[in-house]
């Protein structure tokens, strides 16, 4: 007789090494600061590598591939240009690359935090750190709300196309206030309803502030977490120290 296998539930996202959300948050903040403030080549390489490793670890293949190509590709191009002395000719191009590169690790880490970390993981951390429920609950609902907002935004932009209005980057730069109004007003009205229904549903599932709650995921820090935090902090101190 073939025994039917029981399904195994995963409460965390699939990854090679389990990294705690707190480490992800620290790296998110540190990498953003380093990229904006330092401008050193070494810093860029370290931060870029860490972000790329995070993406690989989360098995986000498409993202890792695009990130590595864009980040390290432009870095290499710049090096080649320096070696061949054609830096001046393409200076405008490299300025644009630089600006894009500054934000890339932040975007990558945001993706890791928003899409590759589950609500349970966050709730476990918040509980361990004794962060009040009122914050924890709203944070989790916000996290869940991001994909909904994205969906609404897509629909609204589509609806605007039917009215012969295309809000692309150019339109946005020319008419920033109108663009925001056209997007935000319908967004608020349609999201308001979802929010109300969501809060009602939350209460009927027993979610309430000030009540004891189990967290299925246990909060744990592994050697990898310490290693990442130490590397992040050392890089920051080293670069800020101006050695």
């Amino acid at each position, binding site marked *: 007789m073939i025994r039917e296998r029981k399904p195994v539930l*995963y409460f965390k996202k699939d990854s090679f090494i389990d990294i705690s959300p707190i480490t992800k948050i620290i790296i998110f903040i540190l990498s953003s600061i380093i990229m904006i403030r330092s401008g050193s080549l070494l810093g860029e390489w370290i931060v870029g590598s860490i972000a790329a490793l995070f993406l690989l670890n989360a098995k986000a293949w498409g993202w890792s591939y695009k990130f590595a190509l864009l980040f390290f590709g432009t870095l290499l191009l710049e090096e080649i240009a320096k070696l061949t002395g054609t830096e001046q000719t393409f200076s405008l191009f490299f300025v644009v690359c630089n600006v894009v590169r500054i934000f890339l690790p932040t975007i990558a880490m945001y993706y890791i935090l928003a899409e590759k970390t589950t609500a349970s993981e966050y709730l476990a951390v918040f509980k361990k750190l004794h962060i009040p429920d009122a914050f924890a609950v709203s944070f989790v609902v916000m996290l869940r709300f991001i994909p909904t907002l994205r969906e609404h935004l897509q*629909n609204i932009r589509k609806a605007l196309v039917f009215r012969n209005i295309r809000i692309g980057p150019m339109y946005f730069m020319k008419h920033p206030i109108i663009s925001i109004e056209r997007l935000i007003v319908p967004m608020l009205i349609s999201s308001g309803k*979802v929010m109300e229904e969501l809060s*009602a549903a939350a209460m009927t599932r027993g979610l309430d502030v000030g*009540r004891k709650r*189990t967290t299925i995921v246990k909060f744990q820090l592994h050697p990898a977490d310490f290693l990442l935090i130490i590397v992040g902090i050392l890089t920051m101190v080293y670069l800020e120290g101006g050695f």
Partner: protein
Amino acid sequence: MHALELQDITVSSAASSTPIIDNFSLQVEAGECVVLCGESGCGKTTITRVINGLVPEFYDTLALSGDVKHFGNSIKEQTISDVAKNVGSVFQNPKSQFFNLDTSNELIFGCENLNLDREEILKRAEQTIAGLNLKNLVNRNIFELSGGEKQRIACGSIISMRPKILLLDEPTANLDYESIEILKEMLLNLKSLGYTIVLSEHRLYWLEDLADRFIYLQSGKQLGTYTFNELYHKSEQELSEMGLRSMNVAALFENLNWITERKRWELCKLNDKKNTQKSLEITLEDVSVAYQNTPVFQLPKLSFSGGSIIGIVGENGAGKTTFINTLLGFMKHQGTIRENQTVLKKKALNKGGFMVMQDVNQQLFSNTLMNEVLLGTDASKEQAQELLEKLGLASLEERHPASLSGGEKQRVAVASALLSNKRMIVFDEPTSGLDRKSLEQFCAEIKELSSPDNLIFIVTHDIEVIFQLVDFILPCSKYKE
């Protein structure tokens, strides 16, 4: 002792002098399945909210008198989250009742809130998955599930909490025929396990074998109690007067299956509509669309002539949305789409088409109704006034679009489509959650709008709309080699 007892419930709001629920009493025995029915606004949703305690604690503008008892315990001294231990609620909109991005965490979310042991939670989750046959839904991204699958996960999450009473508020409003069947199987199973089930519903035909009693409500008053058979044997005329939707749709389903049998991506004629003047013809030739290298459809030839109303049907994932997006110029396609003799490229398709979305709120942008219908058109104010008059919106000209009712918002969207001279107007699930009266009204309005200069497409699961309104059916189906 009754499983559920409502004693002299009256719900009133400060805004109106007539109560929303007027002296309503109900006793439900353990293991019974009771359905609340009646037209929109009759108070059935409000009663479900009284049962789970959302009125008055959450909807605090409403005042409640009378008492609700679950297994003899009054809920007066309990908070909503206490009530949640006994009463599990599933809501109408599958999109707005989950809190996690993945199904596994969602299934145990309620148990975590009950502060159960880790081991106990895992045991319960396992039992729920086995009991409700959710095995192929675990460890999935909720945003990628269909409405029916989301609804099953919502039930699963509730069942893990082991409530004694299951409360469902219009659970089928957004579901297709097959999902309703699966949901019914699941509820039958739960009923046989001894769960007490209370439903509020517009669609009643699927409740055969499941419902023991139907409570009929009108303006917050209980007007009668029926069994399935009693309602089933009422004439369409009687049901229509009561504002209830058709009970006997089995014949319609058979008819639909017969018409569309073995036809895929071909127009099937439903009505003989005489169309003498042919001023508009949209033709698709060798149009094919692929999504991430997998073909969605390949159409040798398909042509629609002006004045037709076309129903787009098919199960979830059949390619209905992709087809519509192609017609409206949002998809990259191979082949040609022609309007009479002119080939239409993506931008021209964008310009010639319009979609009335499922959530109309997402397409209302202006501060008054007049500005709204004039946005993005070259039409004059007089033309707009004339059209609003025709659509019965003339007195609302200066109102804010957000303050209108659902049906009025839909009409505003249609008005702006007509004013900007759109040839293809698509309705995406326009009748989800409508009662009989609104449904009939909608069908009449659309027939009125249909003219030789336009094509109307209706994407729908609703069998009644198909047979009342549509001239042609386009059955969609997953691409097979």
